[in-house]
């Protein structure tokens, strides 16, 4: 490589190259007026041509939201959010595309830049993708081959039109609109998101993936994802997120609901890489997300895996409600914060039925001036005979200006249940660092390697393509924190 190019690349990498998804795409957008009111809720519903029941549901949620207070128990600080200063609806102006050929080339090239395979070469990747751009689902690939086995995969707006009975039955059944402040807000104004239905006994033939992109300025993104796995079905679902670099903060308040029936299994993986703000803590996404799965059936299983490197503030607790006998929940998480990022994330495992099991592995890495909190709840209810939980939370501190916190709540009301929890906090061991450095690795590479080792238990749970991306992401996110 010519020296000049190399120098430019190095400088790029050392300056703002850290967030390579920070570009903005010029696409004609349609906005609803700023602010939130019943009229806006009606407008969103009308734009999407929704049935009456859904409008009513949204309005009910909106009214519930008005009576609620923004939660303040998380260890995060931010200026008051002005909910009237946001756009609640933004969509690309063109008509909904019928096939990929109709998709705005500008959009396709954006997803290419992001490395998301929207067009036919996706065949090689073998992943079906639903791309959500600001508030609207813009393209879903592989729909036909999925339909052959009965899998429904597409935007939730389509699902409302084409499978209203399923949506009506399950929407809000795991995260009710009144569950919390942000879920109420989402239920009122959600614009799009993914819908997945795996029929009885079907093993979804490929990985399903949604790519979320916030592009427009001053918009909040409120997507809603609903995944239903019928008896004996199984599916692996991936979610990725990016946003442009901006000085102001943007709000992202999504809701994800998973329903697993008898012997069904759902694996939900997230690589969250929303724009984290710059090195001085300006800008970045406020990521206030409610994710919850209900293991309704016997021996059902829900597994959450998340790699959280983005967002100025993360407020997120993917949870499992273990209702079915012998059902199991898993939570694997890596949360990395650098500069002035704040993360308050963890999980809830609610054991309701006998012989339910849950595993929590959480790895937190704090660098720069950031604060990283694990907050989790394990609750064993009286009927959960023989329930079992194992929790491990490890924190790693890089630098002496950051904070690492662990706040687990453990409640057991069943004698026969067994709960184990362990947590550690430490820095990168000097001898390990020395070992790598003496073998010629730069300090930054050595730290990257050791951090990847620290996260291994979680990264190995990710589907392969994501694992590679996640490893790179960890290294990139740590840039500037060492030395």
């Amino acid at each position, binding site marked *: 490589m010519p020296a000049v190019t190399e120098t430019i690349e190095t400088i790029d990498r050392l300056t703002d190259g850290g967030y390579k998804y920070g570009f903005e795409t010029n696409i004609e957008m349609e906005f609803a007026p700023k602010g939130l009111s019943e009229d806006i809720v009606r407008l969103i519903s009308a734009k999407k041509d929704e049935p009456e029941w859904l409008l009513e549901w949204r309005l009910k949620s909106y009214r519930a939201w008005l009576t609620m207070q923004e939660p303040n128990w998380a260890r995060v600080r931010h200026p008051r959010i002005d909910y009237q200063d946001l756009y609640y609806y933004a969509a690309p102006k063109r008509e909904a595309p019928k096939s990929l050929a109709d998709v705005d080339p500008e959009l396709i090239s954006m997803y290419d830049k992001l490395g998301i395979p929207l067009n036919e070469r996706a065949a090689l990747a073998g992943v079906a993708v639903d791309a959500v751009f600001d508030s609207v689902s813009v393209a879903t690939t592989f729909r036909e081959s999925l339909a052959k086995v009965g899998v429904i995969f597409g935007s939730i707006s389509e699902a409302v039109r084409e499978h209203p009975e399923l949506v009506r039955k399950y929407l809000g059944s795991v995260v009710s609109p009144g569950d919390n402040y942000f879920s109420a807000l989402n239920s009122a104004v959600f614009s799009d998101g993914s819908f997945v239905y795996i029929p009885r006994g079907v093993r979804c033939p490929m990985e399903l993936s949604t790519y979320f992109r916030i592009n427009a300025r001053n918009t909040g993104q409120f997507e809603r994802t609903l995944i239903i796995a019928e008896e004996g079905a199984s599916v692996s679902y991936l979610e990725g997120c990016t946003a442009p670099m901006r000085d102001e903060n943007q709000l992202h308040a999504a809701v994800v609901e998973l329903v697993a029936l008898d012997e069904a299994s759902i694996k939900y993986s997230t690589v969250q890489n929303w724009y984290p703000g710059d090195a001085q803590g300006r800008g970045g996404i406020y990521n206030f997300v409610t994710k919850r799965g209900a293991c309704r059936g016997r021996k059902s299983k829900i597994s959450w895996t998340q790699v959280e490197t983005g967002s100025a503030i993360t407020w997120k607790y993917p949870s499992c409600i273990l209702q079915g006998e012998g059902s199991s929940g898993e939570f694997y998480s890596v949360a990395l914060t650098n500069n002035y990022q704040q993360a308050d994330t963890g999980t809830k495992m609610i054991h309701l039925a006998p012989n339910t099991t849950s595993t929590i592995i959480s790895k937190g890495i704090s660098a720069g001036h950031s604060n990283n909190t694990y907050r989790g709840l394990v609750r064993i209810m009286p009927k959960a005979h023989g329930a079992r939980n194992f929790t491990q939370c490890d*924190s790693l501190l890089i630098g002496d200006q950051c*904070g690492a*916190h662990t706040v687990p709540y*453990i*409640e057991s009301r069943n004698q026969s249940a067994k709960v184990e*929890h362990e947590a550690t*906090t430490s820095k990168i061991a000097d001898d390990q660092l020395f070992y790598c450095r003496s073998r010629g690795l730069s300090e930054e590479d050595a730290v990257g390697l050791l951090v990847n080792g620290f996260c291994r238990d979680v990264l190995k749970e990710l589907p392969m393509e994501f694992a590679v991306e996640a490893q790179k992401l960890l290294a990139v996110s740590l840039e500037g924190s060492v030395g």
Partner: protein
Amino acid sequence: MSETAFLDRVDFAARTGEDPNRGRAAEVFRAHGWPTRADEAWHYTDLRASLRSFDLTLPTHDAPDIGGMIPRTATPKVIFVNGRFDESLSALPHFVRRFDHRAAARADRALPLVSLNAAVANDGIQIDVSGGTDAGTLFLISGTDTPSQDMLAPFHRIAVGAGGSLTLIEVIRGAGRYMHNVVVEIALAEGAVLRHYRLQDESIDAVNVTTALVDLREGARYEAFTLNCGAKLSRYEAHVTLSGPNADVHLNAAQLLAGTQHGDITTVVAHRAPHCASRQTVKSVLAGSARGVFQGRIEVAQQAQKTDGYQMNQALLLSPDAEIDTKPELEIFADDVKCSHGATIGAIDPEQMFYLRSRGIPEADARAMLIRAFLDEALEPVTDEEARSIFEAAIDVWWQKGVL
């Protein structure tokens, strides 16, 4: 009862006349009221609800005979009867004097019960162990037997000078229906050592809330063990601050609860200086429909590099209706530290039970043996033989009550 009813009954105006600090403390408490579950620090213990059936007053009665509550070996000793110092029963060494409670008043917005104590405290002792001396063993015994529903609010201050040492054995017993709201302030100077053993075996109808505020200077050592087996509702809250380097704290506790007892052990260990170590082992044994709570936070400030913090809490559930809620917390702002906590919850291991039974040990004995073994680790810092025998006797009495 509501706090207003109680507060109105306490003639704060008259007390404010005694000392302006009391009035201030009363205001701070009045502004907050009894803690409820809405206070994060009281998430698992609803004090307001459990005091609802109480008709609290401040004590006015004559001292009952509490002779039976005093361990025979105890000497020298400080005896409190119904929350008041009893000179005739006590045998005071030279370093202990009755405390002028007015100097104690200290309001704390974050600790409503400390504010309440400051507002109404009416007795207490001051222990001053001078530097470089070993003051031996001192008993601090509290016996309560009251016909009315009193709130007893003693305040004690303990200071050990540089290089001095003391073993303090506290025994708290009682009969009747009352509330104890105790505050103990402990200051350990450079290199001072305090071994602090405490048995809380209050009346089964009583409420005991005890707050210990401990400060350690450079090289000081605090070895503590508290056993809670009495009271309808108890809360032992220890705030230990390591403010000098190389200080060392061993903060162990155990609770044995049965029936409808509610026991809460809450600790905050704040590392504010480098090279300090903290060790905590907390065990709960829960029978009947008892509810145990453990909340333990280790805080490490940015300057507290090389901190070594360890905390373990374990609960044994002996019955289907028992409940344990634990919240071990780490709050860390320094990078060169080693901190960990662990928690386990479960029943008696059937395999261990089988092992003992197959060797001919009757079931009840086998259970007792396993529970004793479970508690042993927490008792480890109790090196004083007298203290140990008091704890072991209390544990024996506990299962003779037929809880197993």
